[in-house]
């Protein structure tokens, strides 16, 4: 080595080559998921019940240092749809309800509830021992103020407001009894109330100082916010006297940790190396490219979970614009995108490729349609030939009536949807003679054009909710944005049959009927193809083995820090 070192330049080269030779060759793609939690059975995924409750009491004390990739930019969970709220909300707040391991509704701040026969009146009986950290009591009035705040136009809620859209008004029956009146029967109402975005904020803060919620929210949760610096991090301290964790978690009393320090680290390399070096204990966004190293490290533990409802999409079509107004073109595109390839370049063997429209662990998921849109380039070419796109021009792109088969893909650079995905899609679609130009724009512009449906193709996105009603949120014609409503159906997809079954599913609570309706919906989506699913929406966690007692949220499959404790000698 010393001899080479004298040569200066070439030494760097030689050293690098030597390094390369020592490294094992990466495995080929398509080898499935490295080690997702849970068991796959006939295409549906289930998790062990122990993942959701505390097995044994932990030891109190200590500080947990957590890293995450991005900031929510506000802590008013009602006003955003950011994915971090799934676990961040649970640190600061509580919800009215909680799901159990099977996805049934169970009590949290509400002890019990009744639904009227017409499905339009919900009566909640609330716990009487809950207080917010500013001393305010949680009672029927607090619940009413929170529901009002979620749908207040000033909150500009893209999510919570849509979830409680059928809520008309509420009546305070007595201090701890609340009656919610709905415009129409809406069976997912209880499920959505269990989600972190619909957490309970101190009514005094909402009424007296709503502007302060973004920076310094006051909740009733297991931790209290000590400080928050945008794009840098937040510190939380244990809430003294907390004693109302959901019964499903089997956790008693206060959180075990004294402090929780959250830092925002956008660079994946740094999240990995600080964890590896012991400068942080936990990352909620484990980089997939380092997953192999994390799994091989005896000091670290890796967990991979799947979010319910809508999986990650490679593309969403604007069905009102050329050429995706033709379902045949949409089908050809869906069949020409190599999902295993995409899962490989972003997931490094951690992602499960996905060809249908509900996550494998969602209630009423039916795996019967998972191969309808399977990768098949020959078939995709045949479909386009049949659709009249049989001519090709000098560059190999298809032409019809003098018009080239071409579209722009609107996207922005993010860890979940790096530009390499867009480039891979571009290369895949070139093989079937469809020209894609990539428009890589800043997030603000993409968001604006997304809500205005000003695109042909838009990249990325998933929609996680704890009920299959996520399909309504994304593909029902009522979910198309209007002047009054921020809708998530950005591709302006409308299908009468899909509308009918998704609306009917909101009217009933009968499991057999729901199972039938959602089966039809999934079948219909596989035929009409408003978007192209690509892989499951994964939650990837990594933590040091000193971290004990980690359990998962039943709604979001994200970590619940209430029961986490630190074992200094732990291995």
């Amino acid at each position: 080595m010393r001899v080479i070192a004298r040569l200066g330049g070439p030494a760097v080269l030689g050293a690098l080559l030597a390094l390369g030779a020592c490294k094992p060759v990466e495995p080929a793609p398509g080898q499935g998921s490295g080690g997702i939690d849970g068991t796959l059975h006939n295409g549906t995924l289930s998790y062990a019940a122990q993942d959701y409750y505390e097995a044994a009491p932990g030891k109190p004390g200590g500080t947990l240092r957590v890293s995450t990739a991005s900031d929510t930019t506000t802590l008013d969970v009602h006003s955003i749809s950011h994915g971090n709220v799934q676990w961040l909300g649970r640190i600061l707040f509580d919800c009215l309800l909680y799901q159990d391991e099977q996805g049934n509704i169970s009590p949290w701040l509400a002890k019990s509830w009744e639904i009227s026969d017409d499905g339009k009146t919900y009566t909640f009986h609330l716990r009487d021992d809950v207080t917010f950290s500013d001393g305010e009591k949680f009672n029927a009035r607090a619940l009413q103020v929170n529901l009002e705040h979620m749908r207040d136009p000033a909150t500009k809620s893209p999510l919570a407001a849509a979830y409680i859209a059928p809520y008309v008004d509420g009546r305070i029956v007595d201090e701890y009894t609340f009656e919610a009146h709905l415009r129409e029967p809406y069976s997912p109402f209880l499920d959505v109330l269990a989600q972190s975005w619909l957490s309970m904020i101190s009514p005094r803060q909402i009424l007296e100082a709503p502007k302060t919620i973004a920076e310094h929210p006051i909740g009733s949760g297991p931790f209290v916010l000590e400080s928050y610096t945008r794009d840098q991090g937040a510190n939380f301290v244990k809430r003294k006297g907390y004693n109302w964790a959901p019964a499903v978690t089997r956790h008693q009393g206060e959180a075990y940790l004294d402090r929780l320090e959250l830092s925002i680290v956008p660079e994946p390399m740094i999240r990995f190396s600080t964890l590896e070096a012991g400068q942080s204990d936990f990352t909620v966004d484990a980089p997939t490219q380092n997953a192999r190293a994390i799994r091989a490290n005896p000091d670290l533990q890796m967990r991979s979970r799947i979010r319910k409802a809508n999986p990650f999409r490679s593309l969403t079509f604007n069905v009102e614009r050329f050429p995706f107004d033709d379902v045949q073109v949409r089908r050809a595109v869906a069949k020409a995108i190599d999902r295993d390839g995409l899962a490989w370049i972003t997931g490094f063997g951690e992602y499960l490729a996905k060809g249908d429209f509900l996550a494998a662990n969602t209630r009423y998921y039916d795996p019967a349609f998972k191969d309808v849109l399977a990768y098949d380039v020959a078939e995709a070419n045949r479909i386009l030939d049949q659709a009249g796109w049989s001519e090709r021009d000098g560059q190999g792109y298809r032409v019809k009536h003098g018009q080239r088969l071409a579209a722009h893909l609107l996207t922005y650079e993010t860890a979940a949807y790096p530009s390499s995905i867009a480039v891979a899609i571009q290369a895949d679609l070139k093989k079937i003679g469809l020209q894609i130009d990539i428009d890589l724009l800043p997030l603000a512009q993409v968001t604006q054009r997304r809500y205005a449906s000003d695109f042909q193709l838009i990249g990325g996105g998933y929609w996680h909710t704890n009920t299959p009603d996520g399909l309504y949120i994304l593909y029902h014609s009522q979910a198309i944005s209007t002047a009054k409503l921020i809708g998530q159906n950005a591709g302006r997809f409308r299908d009468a049959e899909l509308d009918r079954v998704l609306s009917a599913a909101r009217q009933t609570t009968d499991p057999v009927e729901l199972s039938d309706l959602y089966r039809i919906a999934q079948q219909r989506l596989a035929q009409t193809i408003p978007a192209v699913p690509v892989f499951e929406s994964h939650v990837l966690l990594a933590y040091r083995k000193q971290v004990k007692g980690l359990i998962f949220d039943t709604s979001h499959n994200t970590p619940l820090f209430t029961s986490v404790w630190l074992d200094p000698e732990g291995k």
Partner: protein
Amino acid sequence: MAPINSTAAVLPANGLIQAQARFVRPRQLALRPGLVLAALFVALLVLAALQPGWLVSADPLEASARQAFQPPSSLHWLGTDENGRDILARLVHAVRPSLVLGLSATALGLLLGTVLGLLAGLGPRLVDGVVMRLVDVLLAFPDLLLALVIITFFGQGALNTIIAVGIASVPRYARLVRAQTLVVRNAGYVEAATTLGLPRRQVIWRHVLPNAIKPILILATIGIGSTIVAGAALSFLGFGAPPPEPEWGGMLAIGRNYLANAWWLVAWPALAITLTVVSITAIGRELLRRNEGKRL
């Protein structure tokens, strides 16, 4: 050759720089392999810019997800990138935009800088004051920041990057040209030309400009290197050409996320940028040295 060389070496250097350069080169070069390598590398870059197909046969845009992240092998000498594209092909095809940016941005900076510098150096005191205060304001911004501001203002794209980086280098050249002009203006030959009654325009064109600009042209050669770095930095920050076009800075930006498991995504473009800048700077410094009449 050897006797001629030794003869040349004992000759007084003064006034014989030309002769020395002509005769001594082979021996000097033998003593300085670094300079030869630099020249060879620059020649290779020019070839890559003109005819990339002669150096590599692979298509720099051909992506295949299943071929992604392959380490260097006999098939892909430098490995494949995050989209399964051949990194060597992308490096070679990225030379043209880099060199075009380096040359045209420097040319633009030089042109505008010279005009402003001459104006300030030869014009009335008021013009000098105004131009130089403007240049001072621009100098207060770091080059790259100025380029960023311009790009944010005019939008992305190859031409805008050239304009941004070019304009960012104007203040420096303007200052140099002005200083040089002030020196030349009072030189004996200029005074002589003026005394002989040559028109002012001709004095400037024939005597002031050539003598003022020569050292600056050489500094500009070195400037090409830093312009290429500035272009790569902009591309690294996401202000370069949109994907899938190959660009060294862009390749670095994406590759750094995979440093722990696929070092070759970062190593090669980093090496390419470093070698390019070092080579161009080495040649520029040699020119500078010769111009100043210094010997080894």
